[in-house]
């Protein structure tokens, strides 16, 4: 039984870590701007495409990886400057529509550049290698992801709790107007938030696409939405919440993918039920349930803003 479940659990934890890195971007932006950044999943996808093109140009890894992360952060910064900043005073619906517009633009731009074909993700030595743990043979990236995720999250929490810009972020997310009156440069704080979010999405894309090996213009949409659900599940605005939510969703999703085989080997069902179809649907069912039952999520601050 354990031998059947373990590989799914392992890949669940790994995917969960990758979702966590994306979810942090959602949760931080929401905490400050009260905006669901629909384009965040596409930033993640663009990071994958950048890696494909940059490594095709023959640059060594120790240059190409930092370059990808730098360009992804820059992209996040530019999106905020071009598409969200002019709408600071506009109603929330307009900003959300703008975010959807950015998502549409990024996807079409990548479609144009790649010609709409699956791009083979470069293999990164070491993390693309395989490793055997107990009953499961998997890529090193699967084992490596949760540790890197947790290290980055710890670093981020330190940044938020112990630096000046972190303090400014906390102040802005508590009260936008008052923090402005206190002399905080709002635009700078927002830019930093987008840069951090995009940077983490870039790291997430390195790990995610090393695992899934191909990138196409739509491959950011699903992980993006799932990471968003994770952020809501953990309580939007809360970074530990987003991480825990992402791990839960990643594990649950992978267990459902393997549920047919698990139940079959356990002798509970005689023939496969095709339950793997529901691995995506489950995430959204979870979203609807959590919003209906506990809209603040697991660790969310108590506010009546959401319902």
């Amino acid at each position, binding site marked *: 039984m354990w031998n059947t479940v373990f590989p799914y659990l392992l890949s669940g934890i790994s995917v969960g870590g990758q979702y966590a890195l994306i979810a942090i971007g959602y949760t931080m932006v929401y905490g400050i701007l009260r*905006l*669901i950044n629909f384009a965040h999943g596409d930033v993640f996808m663009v990071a994958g495409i950048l890696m494909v093109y940059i490594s095709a140009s023959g640059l060594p890894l120790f240059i190409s990886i930092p370059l990808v992360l730098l360009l992804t952060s820059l992209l996040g910064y530019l999106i905020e400057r*071009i*598409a969200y900043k*002019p*709408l600071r005073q*506009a*109603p*929330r*619906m*307009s900003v*959300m*529509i*703008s975010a*959807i*517009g*950015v*998502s*549409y*633009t990024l*996807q*079409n*731009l990548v*479609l*144009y*550049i790649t*010609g*709409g074909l699956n791009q083979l993700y470069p293999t990164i030595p070491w993390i693309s290698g395989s490793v055997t743990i107990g009953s499961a043979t998997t890529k090193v990236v699967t084992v490596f992801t949760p540790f890197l995720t947790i290290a980055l999250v710890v670093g981020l929490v330190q940044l938020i709790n112990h630096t000046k810009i972190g303090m400014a972020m906390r102040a802005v997310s508590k009260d936008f107007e008052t923090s402005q009156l206190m002399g905080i440069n709002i635009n700078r704080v927002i830019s930093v938030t987008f840069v951090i979010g995009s940077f983490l999405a870039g790291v997430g894309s390195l790990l995610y696409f090393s695992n899934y090996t191909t990138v196409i213009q*739509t491959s950011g*949409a699903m992980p993006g*939405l799932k990471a*968003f*659900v994770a952020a*809501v599940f953990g309580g939007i605005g809360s970074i530990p919440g987003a991480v825990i939510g992402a791990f839960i969703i990643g594990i649950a999703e992978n267990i459902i993918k393997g549920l047919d085989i698990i139940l079959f080997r356990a002798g509970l069902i005689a023939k496969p*039920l*095709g339950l793997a*179809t*529901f691995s*995506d*649907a489950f*995430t*959204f*069912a979870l*979203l*609807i349930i959590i*919003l*209906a039952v506990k*809209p603040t999520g697991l660790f969310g601050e108590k506010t009546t*803003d*959401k*319902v």
Partner: protein
Amino acid sequence: MSNTTQKKTLSKEQILSAVIVLVFYVAVFIAEQTIPSTSMLFTVLKKGATYALVAVSMNLLNGFTGIFSLGQAGFMLIGAYVYAIFTIPLAQRASVYQYYNGGIVQTTLPVFIAMILAGLVAAFFAFLIGLPVLRLKSDYLAVATLGFAEIIRAVFQWDKIGPLTNGSNMLRLFPTFNDFNIRNASGEVTIYLSTLVPLLISGVCIALIVLLINSTFGRALRAIKDDEIAAEAMGIRLSSHKQLAFCISSFFTGVGGAMLAMYQTTVQAKSFTTAMTYEILLIVVIGGIGSVTGSCISSFLFVACSEWWLRFLDQKHMIGNFEVPLLRNGFRLVVFSVIIMIVVLFFRQGIMGTRELPDLFRKRPTDRKKGRGIKA
């Protein structure tokens, strides 16, 4: 069409608008008999009619009630499937449901009844999903409805319900727009109606929505959009009004889905993606959130640009020996996205703002609504 005139008799502007609509239909009828039916014009009109209906019903929620729903693709999927399942001729079922022994539904309904059924089933699902989801506010509601559409898409592809939905395989061979053409005994087309009928169906549905918007119920919806608390204080029951608006909008979206099935001639669950919802949302935004006329105009513009006028951007062009740079597959969509971003950022009113067709003929002073922005 507009409720700014409270008189019972039709105003001059309204009559003028009605004439314009009538002239449009007559022009389409004449064009259809004279221009070869393979012309892109008819493709655009057919798809435009479908998108116009869906866009207007989305506008009913987003523009008039203030419910930011992104579940359109899900409701269209339901409508398209219900229509297709109930109209495939009995003789063809064995070949369509080849993996499921001809399927379990063994009745065939007339086209129009199947379309209404498509709407009703979509509305029923809207009722169920509305119970938990409509309690949520703006962006949470958006994501929950988006999630619902994804769930529907997954469920319809599940092979355990294959006898009903044909699993992840295509549904096909049901009546399409071309079956509206009147043929003589030898099978030759005598009167072309394949474009006019969809436009009429869509027109009738949109007219019903317009009547609804201008009724007491519609005014209650606008009150909810402007200020929920004030509306509640005026005695409007929020939950039941929102629920009803959601169901009505989904009904028409379902009918739109059935029309899309007819337009495409095949239905497959995997094509009803979030991108489809986004496209419709962008149509609504370009037309002007809160304007039925705007949604209709921008649907036709959007479809015409994406299917016809901007096609040249996808092909290589030579001027003498000079190859025009950038033009290759996909460039059309990039240009399109840029236009959309410009509209979203700088022309938030869209084409029409909140004005309707009759408002265009009024003199300036009655344009006071023009300054109103998009309300959250």
